């Protein structure tokens, strides 16, 4: 079955060092009801971090690019979409 959300976590060095390392735990900490709806994909650099004021870490949820991503922020997005 097609999952509702496809989450791409950037693990390029910029994102990884500036907070993205914690996002690697997403699969382990997602509540069960959300887990069923989500497919998590690891990714090399999403090319979002190159601007002067880019706010790493980045995560893409379907077509939406989330900046300054964190696990609570992702969970909230999944709950409201």
């Amino acid at each position, binding site marked *: 079955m097609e999952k509702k959300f496809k989450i791409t976590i950037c693990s390029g060095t910029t994102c*990884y060092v500036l907070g993205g390392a914690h996002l690697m735990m997403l699969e382990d900490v997602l509540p069960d009801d959300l887990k069923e709806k989500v497919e998590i994909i690891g990714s090399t650099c999403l090319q979002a971090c190159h601007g002067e004021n880019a706010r790493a870490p980045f995560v893409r949820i379907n077509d939406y690019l989330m900046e300054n991503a964190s696990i609570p922020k992702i969970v909230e997005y999944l709950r409201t979409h």
Partner: protein
Amino acid sequence: MNYINNAAIIKRQLIVRLAKMMLAGNLNSRIDFIPLQQAPKDYEAMRCCVHHDRAVLHHRLMALLGFAIENEQPEDEIRTLASYVAEAEQKGDSRLDEKILTVIDEACSSCVRANYRVTNACRGCVARQCLMNCPKKAIKIENGHAVINEMLCISCGICAKACPYHSIIYQPIPCEEACPVNAISQNERGIERIDENKCIYCGKCVQACPFGAIMERSEIFDVIRSMLDKNEKTIALIAPSIIGQFNTDMGQVVTALKKLGFDHVVEVAYGADITAEKEVGEFVERIGHGSICMTSSCCPAYVQAVDKHMPEIKNLVSSTLSPMQYAGEWAGQQWPGARRIFIGPCVAKRAEARACNFVENVLTFEELGSIFIAANIDVAECEDVASDRIASSTGRSFAISGGVCSAVVNGTAKNGIKAEEKIFNGLDQKAFASLRAIEKIVKNVTFIEVMTCEGGCMHGPGVISNPVVARRFLEKILKDQANDS
């Protein structure tokens, strides 16, 4: 659980900005703009106002340049950061002394002196058990509420136990609570101060402070400067726990380090192989002389703890050098005159490096990662290559608690001696008590491993990866190695 911490992220962002300027060759003219870039006019202040935030950032940058904030004189407050850059250039490594950590007084929020606080759940009851039972008469009732006089309170906790409404809470001073040796305490202004005679440089206070007020005196300035110097050769000595720090294979980090400008990359796990071998030899010899136990010596915070707090067990600590020192010694023989830079997760290694002749500088993984960002190097896109000196799976397993112990016990077994394992996974008050009495506790021939960080080096204060994630990479590399052999 390893929570994400905004104070750590700000530090990394500052290192990125600083390293970018160094690499562009305009640090002297640009460094004083960093607090303005990091906390611009329209930004939402973390503290009372943007100016206080900028003052803290100014001091963070001083620590990143290697200076101790405690040495700042009153008139130094108007000194520019550029003047500190000039001083660092002129003094070089000599500005770094035995003081490894520094407290930013502007950032320290002077946490409550007393550990107990009356919340607004207090009903100002008639029983007043808190007031009646306080041994120091530190509680009085004001406007129908109990109030604790912080100057009298001795934090015994009787009031909190006595309150029928649970309205009195325990509130720790995070850095003091995290310190295993009571080395940090408040001065008369309520600012934390570190006692060098007690500090073992474990770095737990750095991780614990919610205001990020305690920082390491970084050596990034010296490392980047030597990388940019065409006449100076540099060697990266990478700790075993680097495995998994960038969510990539270790060989990709090797390529990234070479791209950054390191001439050679050596696995400290190779030094761990030497440590294991020599430690087995030493242990067998000691057993021959009638000893029944010996402790590891590779964790520098533990070695500091013995020197400063448990001198009575000093004779039980192995005199074998740490993996870092053997790797540094080997690298020095291979490439004489090159600057050897240990890259690891550890604060205490800075003190060990300064006291030995085999390593010139120390970087943490988070500092390295931030420098990669500044140099626009993406480790995930680097090629997987072998380092200039690879290691066995035995040496690589020193990164986690239990690795040293099993290496030595297995080696001792090859000499026909069966030894038991005892592992102190984390150095807390209980571990101190057991170690002091260890000769009475241990009955049979036993090798004792002590790791100050619970879980081992992968849980150190300077790591990037969540240890759960990093461990998966280590297990994979150890498995691959087992299949290859």
